[in-house]
């Protein structure tokens, strides 16, 4: 399997701030690579460095096996991107924007190609309307259309669901899955929301304060065997006593935020439920999360230093 992106020791220093610190990762052909981190963790800076918007302080970026700094033109011809907000020329129509960026990407688009592309992102009916009149979701879809119009091998989507309503988010998700499964594109998608990445990513990278925390396959990171269940009860002291005395004690984890945590396989949740009832524990809520989500919540809410998580 070919490595589409290979980043080694990437660092970006802005005056007093180290936005990206010795970051290394790689994206394989066909991956939907989820790039996860809080706002300000360094996702955007990394993505901008991959697109030559920002010059790295040190480190190396290779795309398609070529050095980005040296083969910029060749590489970028094969990359499509939506960087943060999908801003396009508001005084031009969707069709005109698409045509303009297609030509900038080095192709000579036919009318059919452009209309097909607009069809794919669901904007064919609005092709000749000025972008000024578009909703955020429509702009986002146009942005993706622009990223795809020159049929690039690698697609980079930086926070593609920002500012979208639930329907818009779902649309983008489906589009990513379509691109990956049906068109066999390699996709790097960043987000600060795990739930978005979880549903589409095949590999995941989590960064915080510019450093890599986790990199791994989604199947492993979202392993159902690693489910964390958070219990809220009427009387946690009583509940804890009961659980410690039961066979479930081996699953018990540290208590956090006045909740009881258990780590178990997702399939065991019904049995736990029954057992809790049998132990006469008065349950307020039972929330299952996989361990990565739990971990992600810790770094995003706690902000305390966490050692690199490995699974």
């Amino acid at each position: 399997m070919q490595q589409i992106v290979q980043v080694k020791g990437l660092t970006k220093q802005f005056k007093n701030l180290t936005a990206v610190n010795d970051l290394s990762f790689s994206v394989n052909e066909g991956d939907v690579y989820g790039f996860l981190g809080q706002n300000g963790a360094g996702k955007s800076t990394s993505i901008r460095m991959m697109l030559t918007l920002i010059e790295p302080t040190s480190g190396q970026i290779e795309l398609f096996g070529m050095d980005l700094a040296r083969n910029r033109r060749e590489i970028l011809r094969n990359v499509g991107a939506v960087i943060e907000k999908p801003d396009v020329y508001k005084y031009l129509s969707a069709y005109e924007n698409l045509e303009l960026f297609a030509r900038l990407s080095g192709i000579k688009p036919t009318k059919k190609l452009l209309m097909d592309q607009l069809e794919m992102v669901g904007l064919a009916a609005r092709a000749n309307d000025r972008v000024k009149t578009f909703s955020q979701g429509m702009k986002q879809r146009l942005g993706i259309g622009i990223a795809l119009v020159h049929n690039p091998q690698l697609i980079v989507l930086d926070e593609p669901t920002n500012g979208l309503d639930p329907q818009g988010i779902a649309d983008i998700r489906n589009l990513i899955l379509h691109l990956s499964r049906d068109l066999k594109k390699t996709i790097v998608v960043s987000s600060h929301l795990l739930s978005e990445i979880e549903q589409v990513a095949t590999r995941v990278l989590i960064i915080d304060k510019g450093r890599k925390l986790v990199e791994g396959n989604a199947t492993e990171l979202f392993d159902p065997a690693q489910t964390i269940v958070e219990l809220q009860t009427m009387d946690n002291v009583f509940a804890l006593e009961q659980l410690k005395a039961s066979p479930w004690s081996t699953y018990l984890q540290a208590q956090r935020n006045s909740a009881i945590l258990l780590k178990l396989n997702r399939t065991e949740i019904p049995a736990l439920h029954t057992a809790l009832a049998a132990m006469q524990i008065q349950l307020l809520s039972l929330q299952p999360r996989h361990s990565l989500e739990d971990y992600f919540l810790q770094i995003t809410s706690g902000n305390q230093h966490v050692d690199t998580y490995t699974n």
Partner: protein
Amino acid sequence: MWTLIQIELYKIFRRPRTYIAFIAVAALITIIQFGLKVDGKSYADFLMKDIGGTMEIDGNIINGYLICYIMLQLLLVHVPLLVALIAADMISGEANMGTLRLLISKPFSRTELLLAKFFASTVYTLLLLVWLAILALFLSMWIFGTGDMFLMKSSYVVLLSENDVFWRYAGAFVFAALAMVTVAALGFFLSIFAENSIGPIVATMSVIVFFTILSTLNIPIFNALKPYLFTTHMISWKEFFDIQVNDANEAIVGSIQNPQKIVNSALVLIIHIIGFVGGSIWIFNKKDVLS
């Protein structure tokens, strides 16, 4: 590169803002023409009063040639604003709109992008001057006719024969184009530093107004500065309308009093253009795009 230039031109001429300049120029010129058509006589009398002490001007001095000169004198102070409106927006406007990110991530170098953008601003500037020439010169020639051109300088007057004027306008417009491209280069240079277009437009105009005031004031300490201000050189187009005289004080048809001055000023402007554009490319290539 050609694609880039085409696209930049396409963007310029699809924007409503671009046409503001053309409409503004047309409005200003037709108003002045209308005014002179209606009240040209009293304007001419006013002009002639000063020389009237000993000499008499016979004939109609308010012809198309003089009117064009008057308008160039007036408008070349305002046209920089219209040039800045586009040139100072070339980079900052894209940054403001958010399209700069996408543009930079496309497969061509930043140098190419800047050159294409500067070329497009130059085309716009030149078209604006062609428009100015059509209205200020050709339309005036059509409305007011042609004839000898009578000009009053601060210490002498110049009378140019009818057939000795047009080529001077050709030269003057070429020079004015150079001056306006210098303004475009300045605006362009300032536009790489900002993420909104108002800043660089205002900054460009401020620099021009400030320098022009320094150029105009006749204060000894500033006089030493004048040769180094590009605004001083921007008005050298007027040199085309000064004629040489021979020992018998006869004007030599087809001559220019001070051709060296035109050449020098042109060189100063060209150096400014190269400096501004070169500086833009140098700085922009090192700039991190964070917009």
